[in-house]
């Protein structure tokens, strides 16, 4: 498996597992620990593992990290995920106007919107890379 493709799969798995972990932790905290001090770092701690890719999969001697085609694929995936990020941001800005009208929203709404947009950005980037390599078929081989 190509290194870029390997990273895309790694990121996809880590982000999905981390999101599920965060959702479960938040649900447990809300249900069984209401009103207590709860650090936001705890549910989102697993997202740090996305940056540990090089630690778990170090570049071997003589191994080529990426070529021009990989660079193009990464760039294309970034463009796609940024587009989705934009649309998600537009939705998050329009929904309160449509539902609440001329009222007020909690400040954490924007923080939540950022988290959702950021997570979708990572997931879509990974999916876009995987799809471009043909789901890891022979095309993605070294």
């Amino acid at each position, binding site marked *: 498996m190509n290194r870029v493709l390997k990273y895309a799969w790694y990121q996809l798995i880590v982000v999905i597992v981390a999101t599920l972990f965060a959702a479960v932790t938040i649900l447990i905290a809300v249900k069984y620990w209401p009103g207590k001090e709860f650090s936001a770092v705890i549910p989102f701690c697993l997202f740090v593992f996305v940056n540990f890719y090089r630690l778990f999969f170090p570049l071997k001697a003589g191994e080529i990290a990426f070529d021009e085609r990989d660079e193009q694929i990464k*760039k294309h995936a*970034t*463009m796609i995920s*940024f*587009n989705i*990020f*934009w649309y998600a*941001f*537009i939705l*998050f*800005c*329009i929904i*309160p*106007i449509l539902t*609440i*009208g*001329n*009222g*007020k*929203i*909690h*400040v*954490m709404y*924007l*923080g939540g*919107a*950022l988290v959702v*947009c950021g997570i979708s*950005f990572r997931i879509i980037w990974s999916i876009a890379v995987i799809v471009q390599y043909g789901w890891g078929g022979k095309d993605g081989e070294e």
Partner: protein
Amino acid sequence: MNRAQKISLTMVITFSLGLFLGIILIVMRLFDVGIPKIAFLFPVFIAGSGGIISITCFKKDKGTIIFDERDKLIEKNANLAGFGAVYLYVIVMSFLPIGILGEEGTIPVTWCPALLIGAGFCQAFAQSIAILIQYSRGGKDNE
């Protein structure tokens, strides 16, 4: 100077002017000079006029080749720079209200579309600067 550069330069000038006027108005409002809220539309109009000027004044370049691979690459990189700027903008604008108003604060719903307009300007500004920088690297190559 090609069409993309002319448009980018116009955008950068009008946005910078709009931003400068906006900052002046905010400072004046902080010192209770008596600026009406409607006056804040003026810098937005100035900033937005860059797009109108670009559409009306800069017609498509004449000639057989008006766009090559390098231009396409520059445009792609500029788009990425613009998207990156929006990402940064969204991060800052999401955490700034939490930092200022606290975790229990509230903000008017009307801020959301304003954020959207700000994001649009931010992308166009960063994109224009990225185009100008990338073309300036090539010197006379872009003529």
